[in-house]
């Protein structure tokens, strides 16, 4: 009988284990610095993004309990007119070689973005994350952040779709480190379900649409490339 209140108390205590600190000693790194430098761009990596704020976070969380975490901001920088940035910070002893520790930890470089204006793949806001960071190390990280555009799918004859018929539209967006990452998202349409329009896509760069149709048991695939302006809602007519 006494166990239950004790467990309840532990739950309350553990659920409050979230703390956030700003590490000024790290920010004004006096030596043995870990450095991230590079540039942030959009439009397939061709247009530099000025004024993007980047934060470096160290997060420690309890691997098995998951009740809370502590987060320490290690550095902050803002991109210049050419999209360049320079983040430097000092690693503390407990932040070194975090892989495999029971109290697991990670470093993340996270841009502070207006999420309505930038295309964020699968809600992953970090542009870099790692368990293993060392002092006296410099990383070069050039990263493409697409801006957001929209595709308004206008399916002309959806009433003709039968049970088992479907259309899957795969939207492929180039982004990420050195613009080498492809973020693919699939949207499905059937007789009973239609993904709510518009679809979110990247602006100012070619975006590959792969359209897979299943009609009367026959599968076909076609591809198209579209380009939209930031914030534009491009009508896209599709016939089943």
């Amino acid at each position, binding site marked *: 009988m006494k166990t239950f209140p004790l467990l309840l108390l532990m739950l309350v205590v553990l659920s409050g284990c979230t703390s956030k600190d700003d590490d000024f000693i790290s920010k*004004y790194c*006096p030596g043995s610095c870990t450095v991230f430098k590079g540039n942030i761009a959009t439009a397939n990596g061709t247009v530099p993004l000025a004024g993007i704020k980047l934060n470096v976070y160290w997060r420690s969380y309890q691997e098995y309990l998951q009740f809370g975490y502590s987060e320490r901001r290690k550095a902050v920088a803002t991109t210049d007119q050419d999209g360049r940035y320079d983040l430097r910070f000092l690693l503390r002893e407990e932040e070194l070689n975090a892989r495999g520790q029971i109290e697991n930890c990670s470093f993340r470089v996270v841009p502070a973005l207006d999420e309505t204006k930038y295309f964020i793949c699968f809600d992953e806001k970090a542009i870099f994350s790692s368990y293993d960071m060392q002092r006296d190390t410099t990383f070069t990280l050039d990263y493409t952040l697409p801006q957001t555009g929209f595709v308004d799918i206008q399916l002309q004859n959806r009433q003709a779709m039968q049970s088992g018929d479907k259309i899957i539209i795969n939207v492929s967006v180039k982004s990420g480190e050195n613009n080498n990452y492809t973020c693919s998202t699939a949207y499905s349409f059937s007789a009973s379900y239609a993904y709510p329009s518009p679809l979110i896509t990247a602006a100012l760069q070619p975006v590959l649409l792969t359209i897979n149709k299943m009609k009367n048991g026959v599968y076909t695939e076609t591809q198209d490339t579209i380009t939209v302006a930031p914030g534009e809602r491009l009508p896209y007519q599709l016939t089943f």
Partner: protein
Amino acid sequence: MNKLILLLGMLCLGTAAQAQDTLRLPSLLSLHVGTALPMGSFSGSSFDKESPAFAGEGILLQLTYTHPITSHLALGATAGFRANPFLQEKFQIPGDNLVQAIESTPWKTGYALANVQVQVPLGEEGGFYLRGGVGGALNRAASLRVLTPYGTITRDAETSLSIAYGASSGFYSVVSNLVLGFEVSLMATRADLTPINPTGSTEKYRQPLHSANLSLGIGYRL
């Protein structure tokens, strides 16, 4: 804040219109001692800012001379000094084992203002006043030195000149030739600073150094 000052001004002027024209306040020399509470980014410790000021509650010393022109209007001058400590406890994580030693000097401002004062006599024993002033300030930024096993973090105490503004309101009571008073004031100035950032480059910026002050004064009727 602007509305409050305007309201106080209207109150003083309205009351002054009803006061006796013949009652003329004496020339006063007063020394005020009080607390200076940093306002806005002067008290800031934002990580996002390149060099947040980290200023804490400090001291204020102010010498003011007032000479009446009419029963409701006076001219005068103020010379003041303000010192606000650098808040080391906000700069470092509590129990920070990277910090082997930390020392800092406070933000300091010396200033001189030429004043215009609207005053409302309350008999011969005292009165209320509203004062505005403009002048110059000599500012010395806080310095910081943090010793760590990996090197030393330093922030130099830069010196700069700036235009300063003052606004104050208070009351005083005359007892024989002695004057006792209480004052609420604002002191506003901005310092141009050029700190050296961790990469070795410099970035010029303007640091507001505004404070709200509360002080008690003692003076002499001349």
